[in-house]
């Protein structure tokens, strides 16, 4: 009896505690709400929310008294924006909650397709108190336009590139000895060793492990023209060497993207192709995972988000995850500046008020520390400060430490509504160069920068017109 009383009391307290939150709260009691999440296909962190949704349904039934169900639809990275945009442009509420890559925020916000979150966050005691692990997560996953302080999305999955290493190869005494003989250096063993590895050293290591006769290669990147794959593996070279991709104030690209530093970075990145498996020039995420998990490469630079796919039952004891290489600066320090991955939640503006209410209830549940920890245990990467700083967090997944280490060394590129065109242009140029269709990196950069300049000019972001001579260039 006493227990029942205690239960009732706590229930009462809970309701009392959540009362202020309910000022704007529609009363959904007894209603049936149907939600639909649209996520990235083949991307575990996008699917986890819908897998975990039944728990929220139970929670919503208990706490708010309504029934909620959720369907899940997905599309591959290269087609997801199309699918979402083609639906949202018709003012459809087909998908109520959409997983958005960070670059898409502008394209979703400008036409008014998604809910602007500031009023909701401010008036909500739970959401307004949420703290994120690092400011870069806020600028990448929440803010549009850049530096405006306007929030249009919430972090769904934190993601950075990490280096997945075949520990068994690196720890093999014979390999260590042979490498020492060859280069005079030690093969890196620990997390701390890898912190000190720059791309020059990484090249030596990759060359050392490249043994085509044994079907083993040094490393594997992604060079596919699809979506942003090659860009994500060129930017770290460019940025860590001090290059830029635009002027953040004027949005000019000419003179920022087509610089000697960036041309050198492209040349440097291309030298790694010889240490990658044949066919790597067409690799995307899936192929990279297959190559690494089937033991074809000694290392792989890969997104932390697919950690579970990279670490399988067969290679579980043989893999460690460490910070990826950087560029040694003049003062001897190593600079790492990578391009952030990861996705945000955006809320469909055409969802019914009831659906929106349920979505925000869901999001509040999503950011509960218990939920976020559960998400991490299932392979997801949360963004909530409290969860990432939890002492148990590093041990949950093998890549967690490397991910946390790398977050501050990441930044995002444009969130412009024209991102798709901008990206397609540079993908074309970067891929033409790396695949050998043309061999002048500077020409590829002029080609891309001028076309991007034209896009920003047409958009009205900048007054400076593209260089007509560069617009006439042909890639191949």
């Amino acid at each position: 009896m006493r227990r029942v009383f205690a239960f009732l009391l706590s229930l009462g307290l809970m309701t009392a505690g959540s009362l202020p939150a309910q000022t704007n709260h529609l009363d959904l009691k007894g209603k049936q709400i149907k939600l639909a999440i649209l996520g990235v296909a083949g991307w575990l962190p996008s699917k986890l929310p819908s897998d975990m949704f039944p728990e929220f349904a139970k929670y919503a039934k208990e706490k708010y008294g309504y029934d909620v169900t959720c369907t899940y639809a997905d599309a591959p990275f290269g087609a997801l924006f199309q699918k979402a945009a083609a639906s949202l442009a018709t003012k459809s509420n087909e998908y109520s909650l959409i997983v958005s890559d960070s670059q898409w925020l502008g394209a979703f916000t400008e036409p008014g397709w998604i809910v602007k979150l500031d009023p909701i966050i401010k008036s909500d005691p739970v959401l307004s108190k949420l703290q994120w692990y690092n400011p870069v997560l806020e600028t990448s996953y929440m803010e549009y336009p850049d530096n405006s302080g306007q929030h249009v999305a919430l972090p769904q999955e934190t993601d950075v590139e990490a280096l997945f290493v075949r520990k068994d190869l690196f720890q093999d005494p014979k390999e260590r000895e042979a490498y020492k003989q060859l280069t005079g250096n030690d093969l890196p063993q620990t997390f701390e060793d890898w912190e000190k590895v720059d791309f020059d050293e990484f090249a030596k290591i990759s060359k050392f492990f490249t043994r085509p006769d044994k079907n083993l290669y040094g490393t594997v990147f992604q060079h596919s023209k699809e979506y942003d794959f090659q860009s994500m593996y060129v930017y770290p070279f460019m940025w860590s060497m001090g290059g830029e991709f635009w002027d953040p104030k004027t949005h000019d690209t000419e003179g920022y993207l087509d610089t000697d530093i960036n041309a050198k970075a492209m040349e440097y990145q291309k030298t790694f192709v010889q240490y990658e498996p044949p066919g790597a020039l067409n690799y995307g995420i899936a192929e990279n995972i297959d190559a690494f998990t089937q033991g074809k490469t000694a290392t792989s630079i890969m997104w932390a988000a697919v950690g579970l796919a990279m670490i399988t039952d067969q290679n579980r004891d043989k893999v460690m995850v460490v910070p990826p290489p950087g560029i040694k600066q003049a003062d001897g320090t190593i600079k790492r500046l990578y391009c952030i991955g990861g996705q945000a939640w955006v809320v469909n503006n055409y969802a019914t008020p009831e659906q929106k209410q349920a979505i925000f209830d869901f999001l509040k549940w999503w950011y509960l520390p218990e939920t976020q920890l559960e998400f991490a245990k299932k392979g997801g990467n949360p963004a909530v400060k409290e969860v990432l700083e939890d002492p148990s967090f590093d041990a949950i997944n093998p890549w967690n430490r490397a991910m946390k280490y790398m977050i501050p060394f990441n930044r995002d590129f444009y969130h412009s509504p024209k991102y798709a065109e901008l990206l397609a242009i540079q993908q074309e140029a970067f891929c033409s160069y790396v695949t050998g269709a043309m061999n002048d990196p500077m020409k590829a950069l002029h080609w891309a920068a001028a076309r991007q300049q034209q896009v920003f000019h047409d958009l009205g972001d900048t007054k400076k017109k593209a260089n007509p001579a560069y617009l006439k260039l042909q890639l191949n």
Partner: protein
Amino acid sequence: MNEQKAVASRHWKSTLYYTVLWVIVLIYFFPVLWIILSAFKTKNELLATPPVWFFRPTLENFIGLFHRDNFWPTFFNSLTISLSSVGIAIVVSFLAAYALSRFKIVGSDFILFLILSIRMVPGAAVVVPVYLMYAALGWKDSFWPMTFFYAMFSIPFSLWILKGFMDGVSVRFDETGLANNASRFHIIFKVILPQVKPGLIAAFVFNMIFVWNEFLFNFILGGKQTTMIPTLLVSDSVHEGGVDWTFVASLGAIYLVPPVVALYFFQKYLLVGMTFGTVRGEV
């Protein structure tokens, strides 16, 4: 004795001839066969290098496919949308074909030309304006707009085939009917219709195959409620850690069966179908 030899040699020659033809056929069909075989393999067998030629067929992939919650709705969509759109198209174009074949209509050649030209344009060029219209009217992802769109797309084809067949039916039939005081309605449906049955079948089968196969318009104009098999095949093919080849192979195999069976039974209409009814004859 010599004659016997000649017969034997002719027999031997024709056996060789037919064997060569069959070998060509099998080599040609190999890529399709490979897909069908793949549907009965496990993922490891499917991706094995060197390829696995002999294996114990498994039905796992199909069982997995049937248990996906989006398979049956998609299959059902494919079936209902293609049947109803082609049904509508045939009725509509049958009437129009009669009008164009029997009456001197001003600009009928121009109408036929315009209608056919729709089918000559790259799909991507057609889908853009139609999408803009659907977006403005709120027609995306609903059953009837999707069905009517495919009906429209099936009309040119059916119209050309049926008009071709109707031109082949003598006007005498109509005249006799009219002389006997039969109504036009009676003539169209009771006299002409039975005589153009092959045309109707050809038009029906070919448009069915077309709608069953269509991807681009379904992908852009459709949505959750109206997804059809090719769209599912393309959009659901990615899976954790790569392409879900067992899914692709098993759904592909299931999708392959109806058109190939139709091709077997309606082979004599193939030529009519593939040339908009402008060439008739069997092969």
